[in-house]
């Protein structure tokens, strides 16, 4: 029974296994200097659930942080009331407005400010057009959509011209629904080269969805705002992309550590360091991969579910900008695209979370029964966080990574 159960989990996860990962990260140097202890990522005899205790520790710490964010999120109306009636009420003028806008920004509420509105318009323009820059960059670097998929010389010319054609449509804002369909169709085509290549390009699909939801007469319109539905789908797809990419980083751990071997400064991230705090120092590289991947899983999940979208979007914005300007430099120039997408989301005034039933129950309990309300919120937060992290982490220990080294 146990063997069958393991087989079932392994088979399930195998659906995500790439057939071809060789193309991944062609432009960012990723030659591994020293092999990881592969056993760390796999089932180990005699350990609880067959998992390395350091892995479990990191997983539980990420679960704890996630739970904390969920707990505060579900109680944010109470916090907001406290801020408004106990703190802001005693203030006046610009300071009051500034603090109110800051609180609204952090709690994903509409920010009523002219400069925020203007920033939102500019962000949408950047987001709508930046995929064209990535397409042009890919065309000049013999790759398709993202630099992780190098084109075959025998067909490169055709795909390069098609990418330039698509980029011109995007830059001139012509027939955007067709652009959306082309982006989505190209993304499906990337599956031909393995799920990892498609996962890497998943953030580009967010633009495809936005284009597909635009009017046919897009060339005659100044598109400067996202409506609530567009914002929601862009947020969900973008978050899902990073959520999956985080798991892919743990699954394809050699590639992740290979990048760190070439750019060791990225190992000094404070959040990642926090997750790996207290783990076995002899497993520093292994625990770093785990923490790094789970940090991306966490931020992707927050964005996907709309929990503190602006806070997590802001963190992602900082990370992408730092990777592009400081850590990797020119090689990471395609990051200009997710930067545009994240900017468009965090400057939107149409943000909402995906846990309406729970929020409705919490709202109903606000008039009384505080203990039950806090208990419900705490239990729900822990359950969501635990289910987000631990089952998948456990399932990954059953996967065979040998094909990644072919």
């Amino acid at each position: 029974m146990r063997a069958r159960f393991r087989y079932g989990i392994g088979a399930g996860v195998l659906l995500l296994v790439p057939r071809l990962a060789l193309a991944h990260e062609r432009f960012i140097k990723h030659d591994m200097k020293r092999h990881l202890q592969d056993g760390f990522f796999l089932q180990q005899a005699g350990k609880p659930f067959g998992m390395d205790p350091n892995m479990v520790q990191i997983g539980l710490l990420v679960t704890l942080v996630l739970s904390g964010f969920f707990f505060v999120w579900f109680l944010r109306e109470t916090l907001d009331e406290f801020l408004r009636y106990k703190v802001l009420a005693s203030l006046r003028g610009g300071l009051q407005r500034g603090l109110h806008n800051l609180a609204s920004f952090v709690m994903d509420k509409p920010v009523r400010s002219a400069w925020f509105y203007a920033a939102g318009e500019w962000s949408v323009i950047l987001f709508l057009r930046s995929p064209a820059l990535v397409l042009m960059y890919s065309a000049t670097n013999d790759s398709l959509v993202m630099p992780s998929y190098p084109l075959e010389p025998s067909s490169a010319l055709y795909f390069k011209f098609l990418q330039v054609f698509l980029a011109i449509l995007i830059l001139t804002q012509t027939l955007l629904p067709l652009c959306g369909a082309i982006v989505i169709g190209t993304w499906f085509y990337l599956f031909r080269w393995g799920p990892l290549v498609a996962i890497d390009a998943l953030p580009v699909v967010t633009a495809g969805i936005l284009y597909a939801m635009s009017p046919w007469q897009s060339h005659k319109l100044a598109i400067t705002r996202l409506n609530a539905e567009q914002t929601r789908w862009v947020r969900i797809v973008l978050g899902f992309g990073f959520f999956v990419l985080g798991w892919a980083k743990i699954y394809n751990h050699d590639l992740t550590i290979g990048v760190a071997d070439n750019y060791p400064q990225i190992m000094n991230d404070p959040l990642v360091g926090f997750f790996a705090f207290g783990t076995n120092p002899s497993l520093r590289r292994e625990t770093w991969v785990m923490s790094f991947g789970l940090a991306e899983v966490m931020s992707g999940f927050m964005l996907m579910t709309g929990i503190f979208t602006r806070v997590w979007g802001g963190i992602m914005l900082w990370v992408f900008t730092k990777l592009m300007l400081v850590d990797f430099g020119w090689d990471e120039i395609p990051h200009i695209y997710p930067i545009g997408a994240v900017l468009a989301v965090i400057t939107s005034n149409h943000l909402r979370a995906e846990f309406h039933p729970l929020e409705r129950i919490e709202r109903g309990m606000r008039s009384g029964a505080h203990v039950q309300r806090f208990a419900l919120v705490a239990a729900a937060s822990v359950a969501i966080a635990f289910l987000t992290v631990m089952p998948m982490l456990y399932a990954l220990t059953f996967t065979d990574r040998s094909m990644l080294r072919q």
Partner: protein
Amino acid sequence: MTGKIKLATSAQVLAMAVAWLAACLGIDYTFNRHLWAGAVEAPPVSSPLSLRINHLCCTGCLDDVRKALEELPWLKDAPMKVRKGRLRTQEQADVAGPAGDYGGWLDIAVSSIGQIDFVALDQALRARGFVAAQMQFGGPRHFRLEGHVRHLCCGMCRDAAERMPELGKTRQIGRLRWLDSVTGERSSAKVVFHARYLEPNERIDVSELLGAMDEIGLPPFTLKVVVGAEQANLLPASPAGS
């Protein structure tokens, strides 16, 4: 005038996406037939040397390749086997239509790997009108390749040779990934290429190295595999791959 705003329906977007996917696959199938041919079979463990010859269409090609290789004393009676299936005869190939892949792998069981000279191998093939697109070597997990060049007159020549791993890095296409470091010895005009420890069944492509030596202007006239202890004066001063 923008007129009435029209949005695309889900069905329209889906139809266009599927049409585009079909177009991409069509281009791919038309121009990249070799990629649809299926996975490449792994080389047998008993053959430390495998040659990828991009034109190995029929038994006639194979016969000429064999003749070219058997001119080398250390390959005189070496078993050679085409990795995938049976080759067409010349008559069959005459009437066969376009194929996805015209090349193939030839696995060679060499009795003593110390005898392998990749430069001699390359020259023997070229003399018969063939070229090995890849020369894969594997078996020992740790080894080095010793090449002799005609010209290594000064410290700058030696420096140029020792910077070869950087050539692989600047290209960033995964070339020479197996190369850890290079050391040059002026007195004997010898350049030693230290390979990283290989995983079991992992192989290196020596044709990458020959190409890189041509690029830096130091073509070797011999390139042999050496397994075993290194002489003290040939230990690398610093790992170039770091």
